[in-house]
């Protein structure tokens, strides 16, 4: 059985190595239309679209059959008055959904941008264009606030844990390092609390009977 468990774990790790470090696909549909035999759909992220790191994903399909065209080459061009135009190839490698082509880059400024997506495939070249408004970029800390803020959740959970641990609710007499507190009274009240909890548990439904937990947890 150890072999089965290890096998499953290795299978997950193996599948995990297939995964790419590509960013998100999809987002909001920005442009969609039929051009030169292609059905081109352009998604932008984030939502709302804003300056900073952006992801532009394109799905190219045959306009008649709806079949995705895996061999088409896609280029994304962003231009703005007073700015040098930005041009990036959109590739399957940058997309999580390999039917898409994605381009991830840094949009330098907010404001009105003209977006042009060029497709070159078996039906020849095609271009779809449109305008997009980019909002002000988020402050850096707002982009990564979960990374900064999760310790507050951990502190809250710890506080709840300490409240539950108070005498009268059943004390844990062990430290994090597994060494017992030196107080004998602590150990005695812990054990009597455990036995009391066990008696209560026999009368409860869908709870862990305390003798079982006593054996496991002590």
């Amino acid at each position, binding site marked *: 059985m150890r072999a089965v468990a290890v096998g499953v774990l290795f299978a997950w790790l193996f599948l995990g190595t297939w995964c790419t470090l590509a960013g998100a696909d999809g987002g909001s549909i920005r442009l969609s239309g039929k051009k030169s035999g292609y059905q081109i759909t352009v998604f932008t992220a984030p939502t709302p679209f804003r300056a900073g790191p952006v992801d532009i994903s394109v799905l190219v399909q045959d306009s008649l059959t709806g079949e995705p065209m895996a061999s088409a080459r896609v280029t994304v061009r962003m231009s703005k008055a007073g700015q040098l135009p930005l041009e990036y190839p959109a590739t399957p490698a940058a997309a*999580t959904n390999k039917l898409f082509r994605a381009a991830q880059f840094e949009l330098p400024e907010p404001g009105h941008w003209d977006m042009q997506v060029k497709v070159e495939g078996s039906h020849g070249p095609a271009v779809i264009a449109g305008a997009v408004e980019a909002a002000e970029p988020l402050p850096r800390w707002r982009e990564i606030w979960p990374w900064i803020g999760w310790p507050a959740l951990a502190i809250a959970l710890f506080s709840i844990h300490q409240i539950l641990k108070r005498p009268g609710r059943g004390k844990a007499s062990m430290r994090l390092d597994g060494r017992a507190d030196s107080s004998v009274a602590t150990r005695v009240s812990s054990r009597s609390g455990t036995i009391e909890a066990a008696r209560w548990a026999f009368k409860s439904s869908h709870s862990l009977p305390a003798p079982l937990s006593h054996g496991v947890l002590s």
Partner: protein
Amino acid sequence: MNPAFDAIIRSWPFEPWLYVSLLLAAGIYVRGWLVLHRRGARHWSQGQMIAFLAGLTVLFLALASPIEPFTSLLLQVHMVQHLMLMMLAPPLLWLGAPQFPLLLGLSRPIRTYWVAPLFRSHFLRRTFQRLTHPVPAWLLFTAATWFWHFPPIYELVLRWDGWHYLQHISFLGTALLFWYPVVRPYPSRPTWSPWLLIPYLILADVQNTLLSALLTFSDRPLYAYYVEGPRLGNLSPLDDQAVAGVLMWVPGSLAYLVPLWVIGIRLLFGGDETTTRRPGSLPGRAPGQGAAPVWPALPIVGQSRPFVEPTAFDVLKVPLVGRLLRWRHARLSFQVPLLMVAGLIIYDGFRGPPIGAMNLAGVLPWIHWRGMIVFGMLVAGNVFCMACPFMVPRTLARRWLPRGRSWPNWLRNKWLAVCLLIGFLWAYEAFALWDSPWWTAWIALAYFAAAFVIDGFFRGAAFCKYVCPIGQFNFVQSLISPLQVKVRNPVLCASCRTRDCIRGRDDVPGCELHLYQPRKSSNMDCTFCLDCIHACPHDNVGILAEAPGNELWHDSFRSGLGRFSKRPDVAGLIVVLAFGAFVNAAGMVAPVLEWQDQLTSLLRQRSPPLASSLFYVFGLIVLPVLLVGTATALCRFPGRTKVSRLEVATRFSYALVPLGFSMWLAHYSFHFLASFDAAFPVLQRFAGDLGWAVLGKPTWIRACCRPVADWLPRLEILFLDVGLLLSLYSGYRIAQYRSQRPSEALKVLAPWALLIVVLFAVGVWIVLQPMQMRGTMPAGG
């Protein structure tokens, strides 16, 4: 192969948090299951483990397989994902009876200290009891199903990732509650009649059928997102919705009807224990037998031999690694290669180009060596002191120089090391040592000379214990390392009369830093030289795993150190290193550099050393004294406890160690991970200068202009987060030592907690600023 199909099967999302969570859950379960299976194979079958792992696999496939990227294109794929989350994964997980395996799979300290109070909480037990009763479980499950399929809510979910995650968590959570009464995993003991499950499952199927019928037979698409989106093949949104409805109807109904049939057969024809069991009675006992409930004969409680907690992980017991470390000359085998590298650094520092980014002395010490030190301390311990090249000439010094003197009493503290550290950190910025291979080479030579002279004239590893700034840095940071050289069985030491671990035996020296193993506690002053391991005749000293930070929480007497609360010099060292981490990193970020330039202009100075000197004096001396002094003044111990201000400041300073280390780790790992390949062109240049063209021409582009990966600041913040939590917890444990109640401890901790949080906020601010990429070529260079 069809290109579209090929693209589909290659579309695996990257979800590292999911992988980590699932692997952790599986590892803990398997560990606990193996223990239970050994003790009672009859109760813990292999099928249970297979079921639990299958449940985790279903979760993985639902959320991290090609299903996930296609949920935004096809409603039917989204439906399959939800069915996996709600109908397949939860029953499999419960069939694995996971409560005890997951409990036993945790380490004992976590189980008894963190988990036990939760299981003893009346509130939690009552809440769980109520939530898993069929009535509330059914209501919550149905409410979640209908709520999230309501069109405006579903649109929100499809357009915003946060809502999507909430939806999945809600589906999984309510489904786990729903399936718990159906599966009734061991050791649950419901007191309600199992006949209740018949209408329970029938009504669940009825609501499922209603919702699926709405989706299947609707004459218009309910979710506008799928209408606006591209269509794959010739499938219209309405057809897609109808297929989704059929999937929800048929497989969804089967998920209810199959267990309904199984339970019905059992109830009608017997075989279910709960129908004959009275509340409070035991399985297998006839009614009336036994007056009072006794502990049931279960594998855990009724075991024939006592449960023996496995001993702590010992590196010396790892194959190959342990054997290598037990070898008498193991340390020398690590020191010699580093000695050779140090020689190359000194040589290139004097003879090579004076540009830091092109010289071994400008790259290897300041990018690679510093990064590897902190990573080494994070995963092991004081590995650099173990491999310290400066100690190799010491062996020669002891043969040539008279080693008869004792280190002066007035210097038997850390104050000299504190002054040297402040001086070193200041000189690093003031003279831009990082950009001067020549100065770096001289510093390395000075280290060799100092070790040679001091350990040549004085006994007792005085250089390591009282002088070496690098050693002091390593000692302090390794206070929270996970490994420690310590005694395996203290009882054995009590009967030892020879005390070879400190006196030595034959030609094996004992501990020269005066750390007597039975009383040694923490990595402070331990150079991991392993002399005590080689000297102990009972093989009773190992390199054992330790909970990080554990040594900061108690104030017991420690060999070679005394009590932490009586060592203000050690506290001073810690404060300088903790604040030094932030000051050193801040000195490289754009806003601080601009401020220093403005100060230089204001002072009408031509060169920046004065501004950076003022910055370091303020950051390393004035500010720590001010902040630590303020926290000490505000810290009030309750009642009649009389503690001097110095002792308070000393004791609580140790709580800064984790946050200080996390800032060093964040900073050095940034430079190491962002610029580690800057060493390759430098090595190519060095080899070329020596006439060895085997490495090719230097590719300087590798040492230049690499944009910082997006995940790197997140990793740095993660380090700071963990440091913050460990520092706060350490402060809490220190405060608890003299407090009667947790509320008193919190009052005592409050000013120090504020200081720790302020330092954390400064650290986060530093991480988010543009930082100088030292040791790399500038753009265009």
